[in-house]
């Protein structure tokens, strides 16, 4: 430690370690937790809040929780924490709804195939991506027959669909169907043809101006008026249509933002080459515009996915709807918090991974070729 006083000939000064307190954990804490009086107060406050919240929560959530009781009464007798037995006992119902037990393998299979179909869409480095894409394209047809039956499979009516399976079904269908519709609407809104433009604007603004719940009410109370007498649409299909229209309007606005970001020169260069409108859009403009809009599109999808919970209000049995019916069972009455938290965890995992994926894509866009 005599370095400070030692002298060096010019050009021979060695690299010295920084003074103590400027490195390691102490430095980190000084810079990140106690850099100023305000920060110190904030840090202490934060620690206090964590101390207030976390231990009791952990206590309730896991330390004092009951996992294997037969009823609420038994739970509350044994411990003061959460009664996870309700989730464990009714787990299958929360996942499949009232789908016939002996046919549930079909739901499982379509879930596995869904994962397979998603890989080439999500990751551009997947091997054999082209051939794989073909499978992704025909997947909806496969899933339709697996879930509803037909082609020799025993038919299942959609009133029996429920639980997480219903959430995923509505979410994925809405996402798949709303993207093309949203792109068409966005092109319509940017069109030079006044009539198409006005129609697109009216549609988009109408849908975006009202809450989803009112549209679902329209689907459940009014749609039958609009169709010829005698036509019957089942409720799930009506909901799927409404959810698709709803998210298409939001997608359209996101894609419009992407289209606006494409410089005029791109359109001009494509036109000067002799590309027609659709070729110009499909080959030059949309590939760029969609790339810019991916984060927004994923965010819209996350919103749509969360909004699938609203179907409970018009009587479909998504996990929330099932919890209501489970809570009506006198054995499990009053355990709403446990059920809600279980569902919340499910949604958190799926939505959080989607948003992480969107961030991953965003970073890839930034580090990729710049323009």
């Amino acid at each position, binding site marked *: 430690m005599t370095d400070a006083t030692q002298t060096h000939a010019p050009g021979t000064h060695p690299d010295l370690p920084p003074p103590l307190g400027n490195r390691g954990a102490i430095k980190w804490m000084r810079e990140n937790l106690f850099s100023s009086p305000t920060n110190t107060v904030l840090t202490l406050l934060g620690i206090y809040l964590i101390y207030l919240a976390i231990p009791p929560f952990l206590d309730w959530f896991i330390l004092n929780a009951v996992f294997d009781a037969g009823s609420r009464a038994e739970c509350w007798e044994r411990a003061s924490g959460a009664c996870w037995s309700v989730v464990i006992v009714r787990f299958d119902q929360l996942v499949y709804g009232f789908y016939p037990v002996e046919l549930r393998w079909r739901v499982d299979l379509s879930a596995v195939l869904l994962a397979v179909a998603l890989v080439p869409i999500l990751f551009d480095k997947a091997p054999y991506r082209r051939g794989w894409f073909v499978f992704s394209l025909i997947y909806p047809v496969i899933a339709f027959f697996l879930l509803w039956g037909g082609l020799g499979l025993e038919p299942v009516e959609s009133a029996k669909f429920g639980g997480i399976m219903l959430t995923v079904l509505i979410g994925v269908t809405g996402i798949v169907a709303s993207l093309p519709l949203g792109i068409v609407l966005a092109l319509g809104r940017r069109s030079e043809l006044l009539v198409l433009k006005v129609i697109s604007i009216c549609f988009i603004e109408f849908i975006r101006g009202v809450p989803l719940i009112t549209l679902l009410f329209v689907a459940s109370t009014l749609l039958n008026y609009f169709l010829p007498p005698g036509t019957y649409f089942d409720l799930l299909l009506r909901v799927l249509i409404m959810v698709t229209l709803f998210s298409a309007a939001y997608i359209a606005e996101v894609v419009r933002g992407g289209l606006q970001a494409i410089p005029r*020169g791109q359109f001009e*260069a494509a036109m*000067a*080459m*002799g*590309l027609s409108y659709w070729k110009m859009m499909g080959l030059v403009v949309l590939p*760029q515009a969609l790339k810019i809009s991916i984060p927004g599109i994923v965010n819209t999808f996350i919103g749509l996915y969360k909004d699938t919970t609203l179907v409970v209000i018009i009587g479909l049995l998504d996990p929330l709807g099932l919890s209501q019916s489970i809570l009506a069972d006198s054995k499990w009455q009053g355990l709403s918090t446990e059920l809600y938290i279980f569902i919340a965890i499910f949604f958190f995992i799926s939505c959080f991974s989607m948003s992480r994926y969107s961030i991953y894509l965003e970073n890839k866009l930034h580090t990729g070729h*710049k323009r």
Partner: protein
Amino acid sequence: MSEAAAHVMPQSQTDQVAVQMVGVHKWYGEFHVLKDINLSVDAGERIVICGPSGSGKSTLIRCINRLEEHQRGQIVVDGVELTNDVRKIDSVRREVGMVFQHFNLFPHLTVLENCTLAPIWVKKTPKVEAEEIAMTYLARVKIPEQATKFPGQLSGGQQQRVAIARSLCMNPKIMLFDEPTSALDPEMISEVLDVMVGLAESGMTMLCVTHEMGFARKVANRVIFMDGGEIIEQNNPEEFFNNPQSDRTKLFLSQILHN
């Protein structure tokens, strides 16, 4: 006013007329951008259009491939009159290549894909053949080794050369250049101009909007000066630079040659 027939040019190799503009007018809203433009370009001619900014020179050449629509008069390109008929517009755009000030390469496609896009989708050339053609033109603009890169990875000069190659891949009869060097750093201008000189020597019909007067002297066989939406003066380069007729031309030349 200038006479349409006033082209004092030594006759070109062929007598075929590439572009014929007769009494062309254009307005942006209330603003009269092109006023009674009469211009005839023979095949094989190399024309340089210059003039102060806002004089309508870019608009003039953008009318030739109908990126802008003229409101009065007649434009005939390679025997096809430009009307609202989409088939005519398509056929004209097929025959006319254009190079932009800001390159306008498609950033999501590689250099090679940029070059093969139009041949494949407009001319329906088989992909292999389109790529061969593209590689010959990339070689001609001296960047065949960059074919797999994306435009964003190239310098401005390289991008502009790709843009020229991209246009050439359609095997156009006429090339339009809209200030091809004004967005470039000074050291890159010459590499682009060299390519353009080579192109001129091969007999291509060219209309260039540019302020590169050295280029004009070297390759142009006619220089057109525009101001206020009108063609003020046109002449061969020698006469144009040494003996300008109108005061506006003199003023303009003194400004750009002194700076």
